[in-house]
């Protein structure tokens, strides 16, 4: 493993599988009565979240605590960031207190790379702008493999806001590295140019994307990024791209439906699909803890020479 996990691109295919296999072992710890191992005793992990997050931050905190790390989360809304301190200065000040790892969520793409250059601590990217969200893609791969026993050769349809999604980017990198047949589908206003160069099929037809799919992954319509007029209305979006039972019926009979959360019910996904028998959305959340434990454990080791 490299020093930091900034994106899926930092991992080889073998390292992705190493994370998934390690996560299998980590998951068992969460099923014990005493959900804790002493592995990261004496290590300090700082969670620095510049964007609101419930799932990812809670997941990292639980993972850190289950490995016995000393952990704290900096509430940015009540910090010196409000007084105008730059990200780099905040990071250097935290760094001066000698943490071992920093988990960073930031609205700017590449924020993790900035910290990586100026910090000695290991940096884990917990989502940077429209760039990457590597631990999400790893927990998605883990969840897919758990249900399908493989990833290679599966048809995975990823549907939604392709332009602004870091979840999409990380998933494309990991799923294509693992040999899946990835279809990206969304309205033409939300398809970034050059997406097909990443080795995925790009389509604006949801029927084409969903047909015989083994996995359907819905992306959130990010209303906070909707200052441009990308879709005429949320209702029209639902009619054209929303995942409904009728559309799910065209996928494989054992399809699984995924969503990284938070969901907009009635926008990208119908409630009966989100809560239905094909949905593995809450399993993704559960698996997130095990996958993040695996990442924390693997990054806590030595750095391999490049």
């Amino acid at each position: 493993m490299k020093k930091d996990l900034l994106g899926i691109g930092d991992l080889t295919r073998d390292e992705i599988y190493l994370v998934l296999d390690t996560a299998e072992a980590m998951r068992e710890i969460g099923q014990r009565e005493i959900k804790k191992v002493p592995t990261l005793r004496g290590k300090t992990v700082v969670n620095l979240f510049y964007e609101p997050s419930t799932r990812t931050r809670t997941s990292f905190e639980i993972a850190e605590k289950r490995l016995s790390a000393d952990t704290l989360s900096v509430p940015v809304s009540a910090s010196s960031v409000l007084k105008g301190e730059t990200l780099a200065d905040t990071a250097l000040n935290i760094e001066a207190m000698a943490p071992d790892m920093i988990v960073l969520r930031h609205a700017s793409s590449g924020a993790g790379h900035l910290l990586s250059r100026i910090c000695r601590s290991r940096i884990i990217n917990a989502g940077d702008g429209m760039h990457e969200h590597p631990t999400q893609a790893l927990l998605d791969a883990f969840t897919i493999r758990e249900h399908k026993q493989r990833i290679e050769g599966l048809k995975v349809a990823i549907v939604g806001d392709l332009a602004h999604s870091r979840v999409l980017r990380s998933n494309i990198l990991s799923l294509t590295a693992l040999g899946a047949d990835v279809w990206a589908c969304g309205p033409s206003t939300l398809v970034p140019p050059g997406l097909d160069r990443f080795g995925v099929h790009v389509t604006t037809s949801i029927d084409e994307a969903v047909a015989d799919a083994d996995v359907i992954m819905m992306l959130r319509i990010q209303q906070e990024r909707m200052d441009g007029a990308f879709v005429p209305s949320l209702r029209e979006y639902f009619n054209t791209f929303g995942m409904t039972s009728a559309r799910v019926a065209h996928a494989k009979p054992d399809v699984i439906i995924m969503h990284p959360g938070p969901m907009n019910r009635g926008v990208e996904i119908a409630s009966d699909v989100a809560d239905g028998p094909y949905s593995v959305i809450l399993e993704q959340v559960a698996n997130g803890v095990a996958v993040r434990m695996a990442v924390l454990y693997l990054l806590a080791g030595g750095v391999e020479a490049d």
Partner: protein
Amino acid sequence: MPVVMDAERMGRSLARIAHEILERNRGIEELAFVGIRTRGVPLAKRLAHTIGEMQKADVPTGALDITLYRDDLMRHAVGAQPLVRRTEIPFSIDDKRILLVDDVLYTGRTIRAALDALIEFGRPKAIQLVVLVDRGHRELPIKADYVGKNLPTSLSQSVHVHLVETDGRDEVEIKDS
């Protein structure tokens, strides 16, 4: 490299240990085996099977991975982390007599880690240690209750246990490095 235990000898040693376990524990009601990964697991299964056959009953058997409890885990600045594998103890260890099984007893550090790990699963009535080979050179105050073979070694030698389940043959070798 000399073979110090062949398949026949290994079979006899395990059979003897099975009898010793029964004699010392006066029955199997409270017994359960926990093998330490990797090669403690097949050894634990063999012993559980032998005792189960003799007593016409099933003896619960689990697998323990001690990697996350190692005392040298975060002390090396270089190199990748050791592989973590699944711990599978599908029964309550509370009030059981746990037979902890490993292939080679050496410094005792693996057993120390295993004891720490086991205690987190509950409060067994007793833990007894079974090893196929005791090669000496203890660094911690740990002693086996059942030993297949005591094997005097020097620190420069290494002991290799091969089992049918993991390596295709039953054999213990000693190598000079």
